């Protein structure tokens, strides 16, 4: 009976819940929010990409060897593993800002899968190009060395 009257008394009290869109909910100071990236500090070791559990970070590479950082906030689980793995302090960091909702226009799932594959392919293409150039250079060096040797022989 006591409980019944107590429960009835709650009708006249203010709600204990937070009126969310009008009031901000509780967010601690060191909330695990969006991952930030500083291009000027990064040493492009790709360690964050290697440790990321869901694969929310990927680096693409153009033919000159310049790398670009891509991050998907919908795939990220905000564990902070990339921040712990980063050898250069401040290059990748965690902010207290909650991630905004994804819009349909962003095509965040299929678009990301495509981007991920393209990024890996671009790196492979760069590596293949580098290898080809190295092989070409080695062949040219070899040819030059052989020519020089021949010249030496004829000179003698």
């Amino acid at each position, binding site marked *: 009976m006591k*409980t019944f009257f107590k429960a009835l008394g709650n009708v006249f009290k203010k709600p*204990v819940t937070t009126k969310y869109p009008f009031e901000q909910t*509780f967010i601690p100071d060191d909330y695990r929010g969006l991952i930030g990236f500083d291009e000027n500090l990064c040493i492009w070791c790709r360690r964050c990409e290697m*440790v990321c*559990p869901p694969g929310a970070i990927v680096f693409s590479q153009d033919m000159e060897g310049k790398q670009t950082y891509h991050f998907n906030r919908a795939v990220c689980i905000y*564990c902070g*593993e990339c921040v*712990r793995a980063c050898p250069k302090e401040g290059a990748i960091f965690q902010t207290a800002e909650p991630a905004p909702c994804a819009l349909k226009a962003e095509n965040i799932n299929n678009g990301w899968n495509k981007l991920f594959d393209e990024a890996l392919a671009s790196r492979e293409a760069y590596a293949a190009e580098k290898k080809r150039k190295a092989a070409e250079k080695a062949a040219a060096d070899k040819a030059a060395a052989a020519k020089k040797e021949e010249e030496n022989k004829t000179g003698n």
Partner: protein
Amino acid sequence: MGRQYEIPIGAQHISLLEPLHFKFTTENEKIVATEANVYYVHRGIEQACCSKFKFRQVSFVVGRVCGLCSISHTTAYSQVAEKLLKIEIPLRAKYLRMLVIELDRIHSHLLCLSHVAENSGFEALFMKTMQYREFSMELLEAVCGNRIQYDFSIVGGVARDLKPQVAQSILERLKKFIPQLDELMDIYKNNWTLSLKNKGAGAITKEDAMRLNVVGPFARAAGLAIDVRNETEDLLPWKQVGFEMITETSGDVYARNMVRLRELYVSIRIIENIINGLPESALITETKAFPDGEATVRLEAPRGELFYYAKGNKTQILERLKIKAPTFSNVAAMAEAFTGNEYGSAPAIIASYDPCLSCTAR
């Protein structure tokens, strides 16, 4: 002998929160036999842990096995991986792990109690319990940075340190929570309406509990003193921080409520002891080794004993990871404990088991 009817409940049902299927054979509203069916939500997590993810990433994957005892899964995996790597973690990391496990136990037990109240037809008490539970979620958010998936334990230690102001706020909020818990204890213990649904319902004897390998609060309510925190001392020093075994004798829904409520007092004391005596040391042991050999770990999750087995082969990817969740051990006894009860009290009995089928089926 009356006519027998078969009544199914689940895998989707209004009073069931989990994809679990019970088939009751009833005789004039009395349940005479029960058949339980689990494994409706197989997600293939064990296979993913052994093929797709590296061993350091697996601790984040297994955290997603269960939303409620996320920290128990991550800690158990971290411990088993540390055994494979043969490293010892810093003392402060051990204490912080215990702190988060106990905070998690508070919110998990309060959730279970609120569902027992709801399924017994006591909506107001459900709301009240959920209201009092909110503080533990906010504290976990302040400690771990997230409300549900804590990602707090990592292989080798813990991910974050406990800030002094957060520690202070935990102590203050716990002080506020104790009178609220006294109030809940009073209602669950003395309310006459609730006792009609809870006292004597879903009872299991100590002998049956022992025969059917029951674990967790389910076993402790039947008088079986079984708790991993009481048995192992090497991985987490539970007895140093004031662990105490709680048992009841009657083994019914009422006894399970009492075990959970009384365990909350123990959890509060453990948290206070941890914060007051937190040792100073590093947070993480760095190593470049790879997992090798076999290891097992047992850990007391809010629902009972959690078991992890892992096998490594000196590569980044584990060869085998086996998870045995506490609910899996309890399924046989769950089916047994229904016998002789009214069909109408079945929802309250199911809620009092605190089943976590997502953990069981993974």
